């Protein structure tokens, strides 16, 4: 039998709720978690470093719950599940998370959500940045370029919404993993291409002229690339962009080099030939599963025949 680790009714405080009031004051939540270990090595060796240290699991659950601010328990649950798979050798996570004193008059007990996830399912479905899911409605159906796609958390999301996606990255292995993940989910309209966008620092490769209905870039910044992106968009094409602002460097020392962060309003300047449909800078959930980060987020559109001038 696969060994299980069960932690029952881990109580801690969290800032989670739809109303601002709920997010301002931490409230008591309970987490029940059942973990299936990946291997049975520890049962034979009796070594702590080969098993799952449940004290550490509890500690991490409490720390992450305490550090996040979110509207929905679902979001919190996803973050916790993501952390468990990332940090512990587990194959399956069952998590029940509930508010012990939910602000609902007729509820005497608790309210909460349950998540049951296997590692395979988790890896096939890494969550995209919430900004992409929020702005998805603005994307025209058609051909989308995912720049610096990595393992493709955004490409997969776009594919599952019926887009045709071309994912480019310099990491061959990441693109192979993306292709496999897409095949597993029977998403067929994906093409991948290995491109090193920074091979010649000041001369980014041509990405074609007016060939994409949309371009998405998440957590990547190479300033000389912007004219190329603008060129590659079709008239009326949409650019969705989100990456770290300098605030994140100051507060979280990430990315390691400040030039990978955007200065105030810089993304607006870099995309000046486009019409801005949405722009903000601030503390956002980047969908990394590691809590909020400071980013600049932009949706902008290339001029076209249908746009009023």
């Amino acid at each position, binding site marked *: 039998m696969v060994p299980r680790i069960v932690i029952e009714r881990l109580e801690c405080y969290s800032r989670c709720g739809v109303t601002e009031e709920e997010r301002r004051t931490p409230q008591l939540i309970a987490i029940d978690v059942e973990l299936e270990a990946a291997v049975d090595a520890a049962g034979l060796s009796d070594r702590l470093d080969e098993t799952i240290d449940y004290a550490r699991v509890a500690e991490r659950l409490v720390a992450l719950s305490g550090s996040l601010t979110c509207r929905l328990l679902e979001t919190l649950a996803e973050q916790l599940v993501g952390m468990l798979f990332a940090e512990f050798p587990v194959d399956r996570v069952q998590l029940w998370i509930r508010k012990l004193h939910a602000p609902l008059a007729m509820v005497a007990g608790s309210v909460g959500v349950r998540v049951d996830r296997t590692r395979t399912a988790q890896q096939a479905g890494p969550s995209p940045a919430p900004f992409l899911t929020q702005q998805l409605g603005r994307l025209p159906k058609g051909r989308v370029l995912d720049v610096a796609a990595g393992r493709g958390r955004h490409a997969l999301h776009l594919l599952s919404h019926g887009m045709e996606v071309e994912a480019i990255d310099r990491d061959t292995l990441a693109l192979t993993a993306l292709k496999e993940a897409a095949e597993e989910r029977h998403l067929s309209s994906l093409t991948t291409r290995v491109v090193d966008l920074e091979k010649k620092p*000041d001369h980014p490769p041509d990405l074609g002229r007016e060939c994409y209905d949309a371009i998405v870039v998440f957590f990547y910044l190479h300033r000389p690339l912007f004219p190329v992106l603008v060129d590659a968009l079709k008239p009326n094409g949409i650019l969705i962009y989100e990456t770290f602002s300098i605030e994140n460097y*100051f507060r979280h020392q990430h990315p390691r080099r400040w030039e990978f962060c955007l200065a105030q*309003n810089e993304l607006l300047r870099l995309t000046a030939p486009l019409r801005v449909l949405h722009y903000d800078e601030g503390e956002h959930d980047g969908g990394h599963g590691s809590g909020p980060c400071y980013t600049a987020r932009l949706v902008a559109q290339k001029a076209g025949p249908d746009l009023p001038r």
Partner: protein
Amino acid sequence: MSRIDLHLHTTHSDGSFSTRDVMAFAKQAGVTALAITDHDIVEGIAEATAIGAELGIEVVPGVEISSRLGESELHILGYFLNWTDPLLAQRLSTLRDSRHTRNPKIVQRLNELGIPITYEQVRALAGTESVGRPHIARLLMEKKFVTSAKEAFDRYLANGRPAFVDRELPEPAEAVRWIREAGGVPVLAHPTWVRTSADGLRTLVRDLKAAGLGGIEVHYSTHTPSQTTEYLELAKQCDLLVTGGSDFHGVTKPDIEVGIGRGQLKVSEKLLDPLRKAATSN
């Protein structure tokens, strides 16, 4: 021993970061005193002083004034000046306007050369930054007239190329005088950029000293150790103060960090008091 940085740019001129962000970099680098020295503008000093009080960093009022030396520009830094001085404000404002009339002229030359760009496009690209030739270069890149900023300068924008337009700038001695009249100490910026021989530099420094020059920016991000020694010697010979700074601009010079330049820069806080004294004895 802690470090200082007396040469920094913000979005008030051609830097890419706000005053607050530049000062956060300074804090992180362990800088205890700094001067924001934006090109031909002192408007950011009030904000910098307030942020300095918050972060525990001394803010030296500063400016970097553009002047004309023959075919090229020469920059004069000013420290501890009375930045609210109305005469200084008016002089700097006129100087900034010369930049504004220059850029439309450059665009006009480019149009005459058959390159259809507009000044509005350049302004849109610059956003909140003050418009400069780098923005025109970027527009030429975006419009595919050139493939790099360097090519834009080499083919069109540099001195001697068909779209080059001169700015009306003061003589170096005049810039020195402006700073003196505002109660500040004028300092020759980054001597490495002065295109002349060692003898030419010595003559220039002596002439400017006669006009009121108070110091030389000996310590600078791109000065080699032998240059630093040379300029240090020159300052000693001419009885001038020694200053130093990174010339941080942000993303346009990504290899330069506040306080530490390319990693080797360290400007001692001991340089600050002589500078302060020189200003009060004005």
